[in-house]
């Protein structure tokens, strides 16, 4: 079958099982847009390319599939860079198609030309400039394979306009052959046995679980391991949902805004089993004092993550799912002869005591609305059965602390890059994937203004995303640092000049609610969640509330500022 490059692209997407892509047209991709109506791939027109890439990313996080976005050359392509870096930092599989000027013009500073392959080299897993129509189908096949295999990540494919118009015989390769790319997947059995031995010896083991557990779909194995071997579990922000957040063994997040119990447990454990986590500085605090008494086992599919930040005693390069499955297999037989629960009994008791004496808490009052109270109410109303996206800042930390994630892929948040403006378009992507689910973006008044234009996209695509703004009139997280470490010099963090969010929602054709009294929080949220269209709920919260516990940057995990 002879097809044009543009037709081939869409055929390839169909072959990959892509049902939706997010994009924004332009001259350099107009030929592709010309073909979209003839294909089975649905296109969602966003209002800014940053929205397209975040939506593709949110779609990927919520479904575990590869997200796809399509944008034009030059400014269209550069507008995606923040979103690409966001997906890269969190290892999210997305494939980005960018238009490019025709090959003869490349390098000549043509209209809307930019070297997007050069620009995105450091923030993609890999990228391609397709120079020859004969390479197109194979490149797309590779792009999807690379995006989802090994440590997943964004892959960009740059498509010159004249390649889109060339014609060739189409055939989609059925496998990918790359002599240079062979991600390690299966764990080394000797290392697995070593870990089992360490687990048996350990009196105070702790699992530290990260986003890799979610990406690899190994939450069941993780949950089994924690519960059957009676090992307390702490999680990174990215790992929330991998282990049931309402389980007694779950300690919540560790690190800068982690729980007292989690941070104390890290400090006291004698075995730390890190799974799909990368020892980010927001997690470790001061490196020299991190897990000082522990033998550290590190399971990760990416060898570069191992020994990067902390020195590890037992490295285990493997896909988390197969490593955890192997651990399960090796320990399953021991359940009868070996009493894990009573062996770890004192430790579990100790950890739970920390949880009980220092739970996540805040000083509630009736005069103002505490943001934590709002998040708790969201949890109560949804009973945990919602997809939560967050923006970045205090809102993100409260959403991580006061909502219990019991299932994987239910928290969409920019962990690695911390991208303000991520949450709303990501929620849009997730809502597209799950039209019947309640999808809520927990937002700050600052962050929500970064991609607010996607209100139009959700309205016209009937994606009933709920935005709950914890409106403190500040860039709250930065203000908190200014308060604590810069003598309250609130330079450039006051955001009390803001649009009327209710009218703004209405202007777009969405619904808007405002809450200024604590007594109205719950009823308004219930009402808003019941509306069958996009909603903004603007909740005026206590302006100078802080996120606690807090480990100041560079301090040890035990040096927590508490409420």
């Amino acid at each position, binding site marked *: 079958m002879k097809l044009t490059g543009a037709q081939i692209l869409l055929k390839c997407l169909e072959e990959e099982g892509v049902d939706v892509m997010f994009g924004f047209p332009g001259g350099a991709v107009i030929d592709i847009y010309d073909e979209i109506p003839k294909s089975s791939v649905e296109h969602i027109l966003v209002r800014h390319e940053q929205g397209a890439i975040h939506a593709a990313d949110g779609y990927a996080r919520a479904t575990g599939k590869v997200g796809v976005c399509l944008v034009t050359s030059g400014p269209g392509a550069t507008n995606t860079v923040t979103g690409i870096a966001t997906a890269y930092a969190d290892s999210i599989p997305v494939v980005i198609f960018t238009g490019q000027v025709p090959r003869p013009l490349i390098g000549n500073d043509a209209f809307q030309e930019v070297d997007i392959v050069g620009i995105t080299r450091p923030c993609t897993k890999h990228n391609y400039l397709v120079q020859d129509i004969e390479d197109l189908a194979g490149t797309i096949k590779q792009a999807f394979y690379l995006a989802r295999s090994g440590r997943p990540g964004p892959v960009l494919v740059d498509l010159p306009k004249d390649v889109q118009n060339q014609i060739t015989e189409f055939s989609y390769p059925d496998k990918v052959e790359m002599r240079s790319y062979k991600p390690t997947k299966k764990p080394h059995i000797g290392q697995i046995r070593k870990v089992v031995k360490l687990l048996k010896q350990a009196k105070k083991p702790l699992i530290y679980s990260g986003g890799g557990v979610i990406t690899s779909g190994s939450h069941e194995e993780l949950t089994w391991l924690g519960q059957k071997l009676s090992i307390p579990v702490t999680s990174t922000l990215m790992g929330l949902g991998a282990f049931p957040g309402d389980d007694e063994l779950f300690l919540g997040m560790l690190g800068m805004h982690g729980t007292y119990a989690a941070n104390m447990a890290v400090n006291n454990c004698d075995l730390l089993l890190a799974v799909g986590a990368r020892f980010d500085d927001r997690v470790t605090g001061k490196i020299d004092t991190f897990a000082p008494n522990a033998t550290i086992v590190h399971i990760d599919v990416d060898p570069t993550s191992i*020994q990067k930040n902390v020195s590890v005693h037992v490295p285990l390069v493997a896909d988390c799912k197969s490593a955890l499955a192997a651990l399960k297999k090796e320990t399953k037989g021991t359940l009868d002869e070996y009493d894990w629960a009573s062996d770890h009994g004192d430790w579990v008791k100790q950890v739970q005591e920390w949880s009980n004496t220092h739970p996540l808490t805040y000083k509630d009052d009736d005069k103002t609305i505490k943001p934590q109270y709002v998040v708790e109410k969201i949890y109560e109303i949804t009973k945990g059965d919602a997809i939560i996206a967050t923006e970045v800042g205090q809102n993100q930390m409260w959403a991580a602390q006061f909502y219990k994630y019991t299932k994987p892929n239910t928290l969409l948040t920019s962990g690695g890059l911390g991208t303000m403006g991520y949450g709303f378009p990501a929620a849009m992507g997730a809502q597209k994937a799950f039209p019947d689910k309640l999808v809520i973006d927990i937002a700050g008044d600052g962050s929500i203004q970064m991609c607010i234009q996607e209100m139009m996209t959700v309205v016209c695509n009937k994606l009933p995303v709920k935005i709950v703004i914890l409106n403190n009139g500040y860039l709250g997280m930065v203000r908190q640092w200014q308060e604590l470490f810069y003598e309250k010099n609130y330079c450039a963090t006051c955001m009390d000049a803001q649009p009327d969010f209710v009218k703004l929602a209405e202007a777009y054709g969405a619904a808007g609610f405002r809450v200024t009294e604590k007594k109205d929080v719950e009823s308004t949220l219930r009402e808003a969640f019941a509306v069958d269209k996009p909603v903004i709920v603007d909740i005026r919260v206590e302006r100078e509330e802080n996120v606690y516990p807090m480990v100041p940057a560079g301090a040890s995990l035990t040096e927590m500022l508490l409420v």
Partner: protein
Amino acid sequence: MSKHTLSVMVENEPGVLSRVAGLFSGRGFNIYSLNVGPTLEKGVSLMTIVAEGDDSIVEQIVKQLRKLVPTIKVKDLTELSSVEREMVLLKVNAEDSKRAEILRIVDIFRCKVVDVSPDEVTIEITGDQGKINALINLLTRFGIKEIARTGNVALRRSMQLDL
């Protein structure tokens, strides 16, 4: 801090050099020298990279290089027995009174004069770092006007027979 010689085999595809170089600059690693050329195998290039850093940095460099999609193989030759060579061109002041002595040095080092003018000679030397540094030290007092270095190329030594 020590120097490590890394032998990196890569797919010779567009942008591969900037991927490798960008990895170093983006992560704050230090490249001492970098040399690239084709191999016998079609589509495959060999890079010889001399990198500086302590052990943990070099371990990261090696892992990060392996992680690049077009990378086929990375070897740290520092731990293996290897042959390393660099070629250097040196333009040296050589008035009549100094010329004979310079030529004697050239002779002792078994290097070559590749260009001459009334007051300069250009010398080509190939060797390992020790030899090259020794020559540079000796010629410095005449005044080295220009220098061009290729950076190391290296190969692992073959298995030696005990003769």
